């Protein structure tokens, strides 16, 4: 036996994304073989191969369901991409964190003016944290609406499935948004080039659409994943 185990993230992905009744046996086989080979790269290759094989098998087995899912994720992402500017505007007017004159924060709500909460003595980094929290809450509404409606239409709604899909989808959309706003716009300074190449509308909508579409697809996978159905979940 080796001292260290296989990459935890790979195992996590394997247990949650790879579909099928043989998932547990596959995870055990991979661990057994990892103990012999001791190569994290091999383990990652095997897990990614298993994910691809599983997804391909599902596409072959249920092409109609797969087609409906793809249409759903495309539709969800397209609708929300068009709605996001209005939604952001609403969020800005409804509730936003503003620095106050006495080095504090105000949770400001211009729609309901009585709803102003003052928090005194917070630093600029904490202000940023509050803004992040509000942005994540806004994305939770977006992803949650998608997962919720999908599960209701699919007649398989349960709180466990909903939370699973919401958390995984939220993670993907937040990472996608961070890549869009921080990495591409601020660090790589690709905005002007992208706008010049594709036009403003394509840039504006395309870069919003992609993370939403990815988040919707991943959250659907998460609601259907093996661990939700299995009675026993064994950790390494």
């Amino acid at each position: 036996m080796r001292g260290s185990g296989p990459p935890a993230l790979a195992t996590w992905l394997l247990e949650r994304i790879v579909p099928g009744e043989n998932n547990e046996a596959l995870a055990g086989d991979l661990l057994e073989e990892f103990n012999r080979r001791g190569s994290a790269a091999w383990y990652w290759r095997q897990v990614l191969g298993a994910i691809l094989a599983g997804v391909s098998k599902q596409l072959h087995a249920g092409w109609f369901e797969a087609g409906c899912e793809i249409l759903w994720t495309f539709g969800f992402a397209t609708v929300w991409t068009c709605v996001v500017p209005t939604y952001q505007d609403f969020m800005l007017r409804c509730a936003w964190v503003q620095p106050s004159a006495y080095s504090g924060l105000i949770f400001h709500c211009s729609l309901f003016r009585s709803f102003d909460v003052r928090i005194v003595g917070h630093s600029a980094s904490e202000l940023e944290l509050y803004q992040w929290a509000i942005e994540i809450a806004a994305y939770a509404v977006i992803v949650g609406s998608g997962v919720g409606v999908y599960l209701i239409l699919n007649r398989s709604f349960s709180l466990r499935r909903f939370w699973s899909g919401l958390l995984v989808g939220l993670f993907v959309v937040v990472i996608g948004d961070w890549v869009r706003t921080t990495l591409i716009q601020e660090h790589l300074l690709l905005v002007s080039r992208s706008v010049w190449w594709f036009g403003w509308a394509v840039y504006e909508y395309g870069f919003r659409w992609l993370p939403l579409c990815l988040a919707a697809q991943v959250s659907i996978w998460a609601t259907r994943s093996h661990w939700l159905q299995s009675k026993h979940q064994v950790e390494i």
Partner: protein
Amino acid sequence: MSKRGYLGEFELMVMLALIRLSENAYGVPISREIEASSGREVALGSVYAALERLQQQGFVSSRLGEPTAERGGRAKRYFRVTANGLHEVRKTRQTLISLWQGLPELERGKA
């Protein structure tokens, strides 16, 4: 039962490995057997995908073994070829042999 009526290349490899391994056929030895014969790394996920297809076609059956600590408490799934599966392998072998015969290019060792 099979809708296609023949085994694919990888499925045939898996079936032959199952026959060779007999009672001890689960994911790890199956993939090692194919790796040793083909000389290429085999994805365990692909082996399981093929086994599930073969199981749906009735060529393979499976049973769950005991969980072991070495495998993080996970059970092995043992596979074996059914009578239908054996018949299918024989049929595929006959088809390949008859296609193989009468090809002078291959008999002389040319690619």
